[in-house]
């Protein structure tokens, strides 16, 4: 796809806007694309990056990524007019809410981007959204305003430099009667959420990360275990989104 823009959002988080043909109609929020780095010679493995936003009409796709290593450094250097090879959409995204009722969305760090596309879709369906986003600090925050247009947003930072201090779970103090929880972020956050809601009948969905090779379910590189540890689930193909009963967190 053609690079339309590549902008810095925070000190190490960037947003890459792509334009061109893509199976937009197949995208569900929470799915990802697999990005080829360079010509794939030195870097044979593609990088999984969630679809942060996509617009079938304007034919654009946005990826929000934190620069951590070779692949994301290469992404950062892309300039408008260049093309990049993205494979997707891959995996299974967030299912539609199974029950009516308000929805809680919780994101942490670069777990936030896929939740934006989700919030857009749910908002368009008039679902009531509470959105809690956790960041390291003030400088780490991005897209708070964008989310603000879609629901009620609470920002938390670990150091309290903006929003509520502490972890996202601490922001959930007065439990509302959410029907569904959608969440993406560090494993520790997902676990804390599950513990937090233990005993309630909220339906929780989590998006997992793992190192991937094929990204399409063929290599069994990215598995996690199902709830009773009897079988493997491929995060790239069966996930990355799972209901939290389905898998071992």
């Amino acid at each position: 796809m053609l690079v339309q823009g590549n902008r810095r959002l925070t000190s190490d988080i960037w947003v890459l806007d792509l334009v061109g043909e893509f199976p937009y109609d197949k995208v569900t929020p929470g799915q990802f694309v697999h990005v080829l780095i360079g010509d794939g010679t030195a870097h044979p493995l593609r990088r999984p990056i969630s679809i942060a936003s996509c617009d079938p009409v304007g034919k654009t796709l946005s990826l929000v990524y934190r620069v951590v290593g070779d692949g994301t450094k290469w992404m950062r250097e892309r300039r408008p007019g260049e093309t990049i090879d993205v494979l997707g959409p891959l995996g299974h995204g967030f299912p539609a809410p199974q029950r009516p009722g308000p929805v809680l969305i919780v994101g942490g760090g670069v777990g936030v981007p896929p939740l934006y596309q989700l919030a857009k879709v749910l908002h368009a369906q008039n679902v009531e959204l509470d959105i809690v986003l956790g960041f390291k600090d003030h400088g780490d925050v991005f897209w708070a305003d964008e989310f603000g247009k879609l629901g009620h947003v609470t920002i938390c930072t670990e150091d309290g430099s903006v929003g509520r201090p502490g972890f996202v779970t601490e922001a959930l103090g007065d439990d509302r009667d959410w029907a569904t929880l959608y969440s993406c972020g560090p494993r520790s956050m997902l676990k804390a959420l599950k513990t937090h809601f233990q005993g309630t009948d909220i339906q929780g969905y989590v998006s997992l990360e793992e190192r991937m090779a094929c990204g399409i379910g063929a290599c069994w590189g990215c598995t996690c275990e199902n709830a009773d540890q009897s079988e493997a689930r491929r995060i790239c193909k069966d996930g990355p989104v799972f209901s939290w009963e389905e898998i071992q967190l």
Partner: protein
Amino acid sequence: MSVDLRVNLGSLSLKNPVMPASGCFGFGREYSEYYSLSALGAVVVKATTLHPRLGNPTPRVSEVTSGMLNAIGLANPGLENVLSEELPWLARQDVPIIVNVAGDTMDDYCQVVDRICQSGLAHAIELNVSCPNVQLGGLAFGVEAAVLRNLVEAVRTVCTLPLFVKLSPNVTRIQDLAIAAASGGADGLSLINTLIGMKIDLNTRRPVLANRTGGLSGRAIKPVAVRMVHDVAKEVRLPIIGMGGIYTGHDAAEFVMAGAWAVEVGTANFTDPYACPRIIEELRSFMEAEGIKNIEEIRGSAL
């Protein structure tokens, strides 16, 4: 000019010499969403073991320069499921099936091979005696000539299909293992499996892979693989399936010139999901451009 891509690996006839490598293509379902599997010379499926296996803890794949490490640990749904779910589906895709078989004991291997052969669903067996990831598994079989010969002899007694033995590169003289497999009754040889490697995470200061070591594959190993195919082809007359870092039709031709009869493509599938059909077309174009009418014409030219 019209080019003939067909090859016969002994009694196994393929319409072209390019097939996906075991473990890099599941049982074919996923890539069938990208192209028709009938384009392929054959499909080599994931290592199948007697019982289902979850494999090693994650992370179990990691990128390195021009290659990757994997320590999947033979994760697979097990023989019963492969026979009831995977092979029947694949058998409908109009492509020869080679089943890669792994085990912890000689008896495991024999049971799996026996059942696969009896099912009538496969066209050949590839014996994985070289998987470096499973402590209980392949390693011992693949690195000592006498042990390997015993295993191949035992499997031979139950194997009614063409039997390919897939050699480990982590040995001093791969020719010796090839000879052992041949004298044990192999119909052909596949090589190479992965080289054992390690990558360390500078943040944690520990190995990246939970299993510590993993198998190195991809372009990085191609020169070693070409050399080993060459060394084996010089000493053993059996059909050879060459692999290790094949990404292009030129790479495939290089293996053929080194003595391979056919090739498998592993890691390249991950970089480019269309790698296999692309390589087939590139090989065809190369042969056309060079006026090579069939594969045999260049096979072993570098020997």
